[in-house]
């Protein structure tokens, strides 16, 4: 075979295929939406949002107290759990036993609980819960129907397109009559 022919028939197509495959494989593996949607790690304590927010109707901000005053909504300190759990006993004996154990161990040793992070933000994104919560956007607009989940899982596509689609047209997520017409779309709104 003419070496030039060989180049066009074999080397070039194979090379192109390699490049395309590399792009696809790398792209697929780093595409957060693909493998992170539905991510539901096992937590150190089997906390159920369904029971707390769903069945008992506790407001999100009762526990996530800082959503309206800080960048982070924050996971509550153990103290917050104890606001209720020190006064009540559950009908389910095993569950109550588990809670007693947690309380005994944690409160005595003062050891904090290391929850698995479900919603992960890259370090170059500076998301601010305040802006969203204070604009009266429902938590569920982004986090999905958390009150139906026994195990917290990621229900939101965390790509920038998702942020921008809402920032360009936030009306569907805002309460009627909201003065907010659009969200900032400058890079420095989130990246700095």
């Amino acid at each position, binding site marked *: 075979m003419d070496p030039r022919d060989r180049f066009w028939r074999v080397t070039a197509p194979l090379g192109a295929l390699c490049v395309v495959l590399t792009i696809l494989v790398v792209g697929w593996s780093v595409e957060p939406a693909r493998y992170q949607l539905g991510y539901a790690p096992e937590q150190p304590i089997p906390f159920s949002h369904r029971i707390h927010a769903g069945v008992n109707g506790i407001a999100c901000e009762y526990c996530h107290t800082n959503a309206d005053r800080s960048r982070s909504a924050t996971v509550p300190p153990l103290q917050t759990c104890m606001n209720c759990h020190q006064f009540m006993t559950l009908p389910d004996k095993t569950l109550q036993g588990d809670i007693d154990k947690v309380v005994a161990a944690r409160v005595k040793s*003062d050891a904090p609980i290391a929850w698995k992070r479900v919603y992960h933000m890259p370090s*170059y994104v500076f998301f601010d819960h305040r802006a969203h919560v204070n604009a009266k956007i429902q938590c569920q607009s982004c986090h999905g129907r958390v009150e139906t989940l026994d195990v917290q899982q990621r229900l939101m596509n965390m790509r920038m397109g998702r942020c921008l689609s809402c920032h360009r047209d936030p009306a569907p997520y805002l309460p009627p009559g909201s003065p907010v017409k659009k969200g900032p779309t400058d*890079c420095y709104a989130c990246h700095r």
Partner: protein
Amino acid sequence: MDEGMKDQDASSSAPESMSRRRFLSLMAASAAATSACASPDRDTIVPYTKKPSDVVPGVANHYASTYQEGLVAYGVLVKAREGRPIHIEGNDEHPIFAGKTSHRAQAEIMGLYDAERLREPRLGGAPASWEKAQAAVAAALEKAARERKPVLLLTPAVISPARRAAIAALGRVLPGLRHVAWEPALSATERAAAEALYGTPVAPRYRVERAKVLALFEADLLGSMDAAVPAVAGYARGRMPSRPGEPLSRLYAFESRLSLTGTKADARVPVRPSAAAPLAFAVARLLHERHGLALPAGLSAGDLAPFRADRVAKRWGADPAVLSALARDLARAGRESLAVAGPSLPEEAHAAAGLLNAMLGAEGYTLEAAHSVDPGPLASPAEMARLARELAEGKYAAAVFWETNPSYAVSDADGFGAALDKTPLKVCLGLREDETSRRCDAVLPVNHWLESWSDYEASTDLLALQQPLIQPLYDTKQGEEIILGWVKALGAPVETDPRAGLMARWRREVYPVGTLASFDEFWTAAVHDGVLRRDAAARAPRRLRGSAVASSAKKAAAARPGGLELLLEPDYKVWDGRYAGNGWLQELPDPVAKVCWGNFLSVSGADAKTFGLSDGDVAAVKVGGRSVELPVLVQPGQAAGAVFAALGYGRQGDVASGCGASVYPLVADDGSAPFLRSGVSVSGTGARRPLVRSQQEFGLHDRDIVRLWTPGEYARRAKTPEDTEELATLNDEPRWGEHKWGMAIDLSACVGCAGCQVACQSENNVAVVGPEQAARGRNMHWIRNDVYFVGDPANPQVAHEVMLCQQCDDAPCEPVCPVAASVHSEDGLNEQVYNRCIGVRYCEANCPYGARRFNFFDYTSSIQDPAELAFNPEVSVRPRGVAEKCTFCVQRIRNGEQIAKDEGRPLRDGDIRPACAAACPAEAIVFGDLKDPNSRVSRLARSDRGYKVLRELGTRPAVTYLAELKNPAEEKTI
């Protein structure tokens, strides 16, 4: 650090020799790494178990505290995130510092998270428990007490009542205790002079804001002197006219080195340091003879007879016209004038300056001593030499060094070290390992001041509190607690807990009888404010003793210019050497010479020619039998016949090693002016040590980038039309959103103090690159202070220009970015998006302001634990290979906007202050919304002194500079 840099260099050269296979394997590895990084599993959220009530994760807390350096107690406001201090500003409640602080105090964040800090007590070089270490020291002290043998305690200046109480308690159980307070770079001359001249050793507070005429003799009042921060604020107030014809202060500087203050002088006379006293006496004579001002009792006109202005001026190489102009201005200003002699000068100069102040009635007006505190005597170099002799004789049973380093900072450091070895027990209370702690038997690590409780007596009517921002990072104790631990072990009942002890003393001594508030309320309020004003009787006004002045005048009259003189002063950055391990300060360029990572010998052009030396040549400086080798810097404005070098370098430590040379050996250990030497010889060694400089070009070359105007020029040129008109553009006219951010920088107020640079570094996680990278011009500073010399190199006019990203409306960096990482926001910011940036550096090449920086290496991965705790969590830590630049502190803008929105109010002017503007002691930097016509920045942008740098390029910067005004004396006759 050096080693790390070399490693990185090696890796940067790797791609040249890289095979295709290696490239592909690296690619595969990096792809795997990328997906691994994106895995959410590695992250946990760890909430508090019991949340402190005032901490909200993600929201900063601010706490007032106090930082002592030498004789100054800076009132500071420390910003903490989730319990860790990350940024230091001045305390607004403090009546003297009024929200401002020095660059060195700001850099103390790095001091706290210094990897070289001592982490546990050591006995005989081996780690020991606190109980064991304390017991060992206490046993030795008990033996000394029993045998009535003397014990030495060497501390820095003690201006803290808490520390004074601890030392007094130790003295009560240890009768042989000899406490020596020592500041290696502070001159004891000023205090001795005050004692002789006024009969009281207290130092006055300079009220620069009240002075219309300043006569400074080798006094770097706006730079390296103690009172610099309030002095800069006071000076700036008189230098920001809003229209032509407004009065301006006038600053006369007679100095040998080109100091920061000298760069701002309206009339600067380069003379040798020993000319100061005769020149000042000559001015006094003019004031008396020509302007009829009375001499103080005890001083006759005859005493001033040797100081005929023309003769003195001729003898010392000064312009006689300046002397008569100064006398005229001083006479006109009366008590609104201030004469200061530099701390290094001999007593005669202080007497002469005191005479001027007394004749003008400035005493009590621009110099206030009514509430000054006497900090007690400080050991002079001569006394330290005596101490070394005593140690060598084995006089002391034990020696305790509390945050002092005499094995480095005395003129015979090796001799001191050897003398030290003769003492049976040597104890070191310190933050880091240093030259002294290496020789000590017991090394007891102390808390950083950000981990400590204390109080300071700033003046008799003002107490300042120091409170801890963080639990001690390591197994350390506060110095007072250690000392009181010994007291307790020796059998005296004392409260060793610093907070409890402080509160008990405040309840006893400070809490006013009959206060309505309970003590707890009173205490909480004091801790919150960080300062407490009290009623205190004013001291009787200081009265100058004419007889003391007369004897000084005799000495000054006999002085003649002789051989070469050498002036030594604490370094502007590392000071007496205590900050040598601080990367922020080492890399901060000297405000005038622009040298970083080392010191140098400042030599005038004429002298350099005589010595046959040029920039970077290593010279041997010899005086009094000792010699030090330093690289030469030919400094415009340096007086011929005098050279200058900064103390504080040549330390041994991880960061400081190899940076500069110690000039402490050149400090005289006899005589009354140890930091001023005569009979110095300078000779080349043939070696070269190129200086690391952040700026290479100091000429303006007729470019209109810095405007230096006289008041006359101001009246003539005020806002010529071409300054306001924008050039035509082919781009679309920008449409701004709700705000358009802008900045105004008043060059007339700016003294180039570099406070903004450290503030920016701290706020924006700006990397330290190290001396080798800095030598290649790879400093990462987002804001810099450029210096330009105009006119005669022997005595140039100096212009400072703060340069940062100009946030141009038509930014040249934006269209050249191939990946749109540099784009414009609708509030007028030129955005740099790190996650998009691929590092082609076109933006950097296309920026006419040199405002962009490039991460040649991954500077952050080489950071030693725990320095990463100093990072501001609101700002990205930039990886290798991206460009970066000033963002106008966009994190502060966004936070300010959000707070206003949450509070349901419009943003107020002044709500948002970038770190540089907040730190600027001169208030020269003003930030705000250009869309609001009434904002301060809008008004300044319309100022008739305003101009845009490189306006002719059509970049439309958002930063307006206000021309600097020099106010030279018009008359030129004697």
